[in-house]
């Protein structure tokens, strides 16, 4: 059966980037469709009626929604190369735990760091740095969270790096100064072609956030 793969996405979305990286790691050909989130396509609404959100992976007409679920699906269906999850059940459980942790903490704290002001913003920055420091501890001496190669947790977290210039400029803090190891890991990931071609330039994301802030009236 021919594999028809489409990805409904929005270029600055870190969640979309996760799926892009997974598809690239597996060498899968697919059609990329950038959505206008203020004017969602009928296809998006039909494929994700529950959340109406991107990313949506469409494989032979069937939708898989939620970025980490799509990454696991890609890993399980195309299981002949570049495994993202480890083969050992305990290591898999750890990978799932840390991807879940990153999902809950990084996005939320990161978002609060550019959408809030004053005390709330300071609290968000503190949470964000604490979260990255815990992840640095988890990484330890390994080159990647996945060990010698890019794995599930790396794919889950590295997309947020493309938002760091935005977080730093609007949050007025220096992430590299606080978490040099985390930045070193992110740059190491960017040496991989799958990551480099999936993440937009930090400055492009910064411009996007600048426009968003104006629209949201956060100035």
């Amino acid at each position: 059966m021919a594999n028809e793969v489409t990805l409904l996405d929005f270029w600055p979305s870190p969640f979309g980037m996760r799926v892009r990286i997974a598809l690239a790691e597996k060498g899968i050909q697919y059609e990329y469709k950038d959505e206008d989130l203020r004017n969602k396509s009928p296809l998006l609404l039909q494929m994700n009626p529950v959340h109406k959100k991107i990313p949506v992976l469409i494989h032979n007409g069937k939708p898989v929604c939620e970025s980490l679920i799509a990454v696991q699906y890609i890993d399980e269906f195309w299981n002949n190369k570049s495994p993202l999850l480890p083969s050992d059940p305990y290591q898999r459980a750890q990978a799932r735990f840390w991807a879940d942790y990153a999902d809950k903490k990084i996005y939320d704290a990161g978002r609060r760091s550019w959408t809030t002001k004053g005390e709330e913003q300071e609290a968000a920055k503190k949470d964000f740095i604490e979260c990255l420091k815990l992840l640095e501890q988890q990484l330890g001496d390994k080159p990647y969270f996945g060990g010698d190669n890019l794995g599930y947790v790396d794919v889950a977290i590295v997309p947020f790096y493309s938002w760091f210039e935005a977080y730093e400029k609007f949050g007025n803090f220096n992430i590299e100064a606080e978490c040099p190891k985390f930045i070193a890991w992110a740059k190491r990931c960017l040496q991989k072609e799958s990551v480099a071609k999936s993440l937009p330039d930090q400055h492009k994301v910064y411009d996007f956030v600048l426009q968003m802030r104006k629209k949201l009236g956060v100035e």
Partner: protein
Amino acid sequence: MATNQQVKLLGFAGSPFVARAELALKLKGVQYEYIQESLTNKSDLLLKSNPVHKKVPVLLHNNQPICESLVIVEYVDETWTGHPILPSDPYHRALSRFWSRFIEDQVMPPVFKAAWNPNKQERVKGAEEAREALKILDKELKVNGKFFNGDSVGFLDIAALIIFYWVPIIQEASEFNVYSGDKYPKLGKWSQEVLNDPVVKGVLPPRDVLLSFFKARFQSIVNSK
């Protein structure tokens, strides 16, 4: 190869999240030692095993900790053979995970808000949000057989048990109403199959004990200012 030695579960009687872990272990026929934790006086073992969240359940297998109820269920499924919990094909696995995420992220947080937020307006808002989420669940989810994915209790049945058993008790205790089998006949029918399963029955805490516990909790919130 999996061994049945040294399997411990740190739990709290009455917790729907602990019940998920117990259900997975029992479905696989795994022998384990249950260690009852106190929520107000957490053991060193718990704090050491789950330093990030400090919560139950924690599964300890040969002294290695696994945390987060649904992560534990997947681990149990992958470690012990017999009674597969997740479906075998990737698409149905994705569906099971999708709906379990929906329950965790969209259904339960508003239910907890409706039950225990100290502010009455917030409780009313929580109930509204819970109703919206349950409406979507009932509308979009498709049950393929007796249980979500066929003839045996699987991943989503385990994840949804919190709605089938705990939500009716919590809403009675906190005097709100968002879910009933009558209101959502599809969910109601599915819930009956799950609640009637003998292994499921074996992990359910007694209703009257839970009801008293949740009533006391609601009263303490309503009475404090």
